[in-house]
């Protein structure tokens, strides 16, 4: 009997190994093709030049700064909103049932396809509010896209704050605001920000909702204000991939490398934040 279990153990070991190796294989295949295609096109000029009909002069400056503007603004809008919502739901609201309903809906919203947010943004922000195909319309759309993820992460982080710490602070005469500012936020912020950064890096890679709002666009100007038209890295990549000349496909591979490096940096900072949090809990 034990022999059968031993066999089973081994088989499951190999099945799981097979599973992970497929994932790793696909990823390395992607990386290898992208890097071999795009490496030769990477240079300082590629980062600082605007796109061009001449592939040798083409760069990603407007798309890069467009991404920084739109995603940066989306983070500025959604992080405070998300953390505030989480605080309200965990610390203030007294309606258990209402809370549950809201929480349920928020987790559902996190699963709505991103293009739906784009369509809502297009009809409401672009046309009804008259914001046009602007940076701010794109930023608000992305902010709402990642808001549910940030709220859920923040709620988890806040719930992880030991009840004893809170009660201790209350016992010492602290009022609610003081407890939030001195006890809850310092302990939950790293966790909330970790979730936030992961959500923001998702926003950085999104093409669908912004494709609906800004369209595929050729522009040589980096955005200078909230109402400017914009393009972002994923859309620039999309634009180049569909061109007939191979040179443009090399450019898109180079842009993919830049996007991957940005994503890696953001995810790394999330990991570092999480490690700090864990160390503190051990303390």
């Amino acid at each position: 009997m034990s022999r059968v279990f031993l066999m089973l153990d081994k088989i499951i070991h190999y099945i799981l190994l097979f599973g992970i190796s497929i994932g790793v294989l696909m990823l390395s295949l992607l990386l290898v093709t992208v890097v071999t295609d795009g490496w030769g096109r990477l240079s300082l000029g590629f980062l600082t030049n605007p796109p061009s009909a001449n592939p040798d002069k083409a760069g990603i400056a407007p798309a890069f700064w467009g991404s920084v503007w739109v995603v940066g603004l989306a983070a500025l809008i959604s992080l405070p909103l998300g953390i505030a919502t989480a605080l309200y739901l965990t610390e203030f609201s007294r309606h258990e049932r209402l809370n549950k309903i809201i929480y349920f809906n928020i987790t559902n919203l996190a699963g709505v396809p991103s293009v739906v947010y784009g369509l809502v943004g297009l009809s409401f922000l672009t046309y009804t509010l008259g914001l046009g195909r602007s940076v701010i319309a794109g930023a608000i759309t992305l902010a709402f896209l990642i808001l549910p993820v940030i709220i859920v992460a923040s709620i988890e982080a806040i719930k992880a704050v030991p009840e004893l710490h809170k009660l201790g602070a209350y016992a010492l005469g602290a009022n609610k605001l003081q407890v939030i500012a001195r006890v809850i936020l310092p302990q939950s912020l790293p966790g909330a920000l970790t979730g936030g950064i992961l959500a923001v890096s998702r926003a950085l890679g999104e093409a669908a909702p912004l494709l609906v709002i800004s369209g595929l666009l050729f522009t040589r100007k980096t955005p200078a204000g909230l109402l400017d038209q914009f393009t972002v890295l994923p859309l620039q990549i999309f634009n180049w991939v569909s061109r007939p000349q191979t040179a443009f496909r090399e450019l898109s591979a180079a842009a993919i490398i830049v996007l991957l490096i940005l994503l890696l940096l953001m995810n790394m900072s999330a990991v570092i934040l999480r490690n700090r949090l864990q160390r503190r809990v051990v303390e």
Partner: protein
Amino acid sequence: MRRNKALSSTTVAASLLVLTVGFISGYMLATSLSQGQVVTITVTAQTPDGFTVTPQELRGDIIIDGSSTVYPITEAVAEAFMELFPDVSVTVGISGTGGGFKRFVTGESDVNDASRRIEELEMEIARENGVEWIEIPIAIDGLTVAVNMANDWVDCLTIEELKAIWEPGSGVRRWSDVRPEWPDAEIRLYGPGPDSGTFDFFTAKVVGREKASRTDYVASEDDNVLVAGLEAEKYALGYFGYAYYVENRDRIRAVPINADGECVEPSDETIKSFQYPLSRPIFIYVNKEYFEQKPHLQRFVYFYLEKAEGFVEQVGYTPFSELYYRRAVALIKEGVYDRLLDIALIP
């Protein structure tokens, strides 16, 4: 322990601040760099093509949208234009001819790239919104029917045969259904999707009714997908814009089309003379009211026509005669632009 926590949240806040400052200063650096570049460009561009306005006097936005077929030409023109006129910002979108017209007929865009003429329905909406337009043919595209390199049986196709293959409810399943002597193998079809002006033109010209097509084929708005499919499958047949064929001559083979008993292969010559039956003019549509109001839009349109020949060739399409472009500029300046297509088609 408490102090420790406060300290680390300060560190987090501080690092966030540093990041923000870094981004902002980096942005300012990049902006000042690009301004520096612009200045040098203006200096080198002291003798533009002999017009009266100096580059510094023109400023404003030009919003262009529309066909992905026309896009490469417009992009090249816009880029060269902005190097001469750094204060004019031109943006070029890709929404397809129809998608672009939806914005154009409400006055949302200044120019629409179009790979077909404006349709009756679009004209109606334009009239309701008080939008008038100038239709300017800018180049010729030869829609190319292509097959796999290993395909050695197709030497020529007639329009009737293409119609039999592509019409709605077509009974053609195998190559032998087209001509009995061809292989008894399943025919694999590739073509653009229904938002494309190429699709509109092909169905109108070949099937006889716009947007009437069989639907059981691999449809993609991305012509590279079509080329890749034709390259991989021996029994494939597909159609797309000429520029994609020119770029991929070594991967796929173009099928000559029978025109009045003579098989014509797509080439710059046969497309230009319209001897190749699937040649089509491609256009830009300019909002007339904006054109009259905005000097920078006028300058852009003239610049487009003056430079069109070179740019059209550069991106793989076929230009009209040099004479046409000069005539078009003169006629638009005179305010006579109703019959530009007729003039363009004079051999």
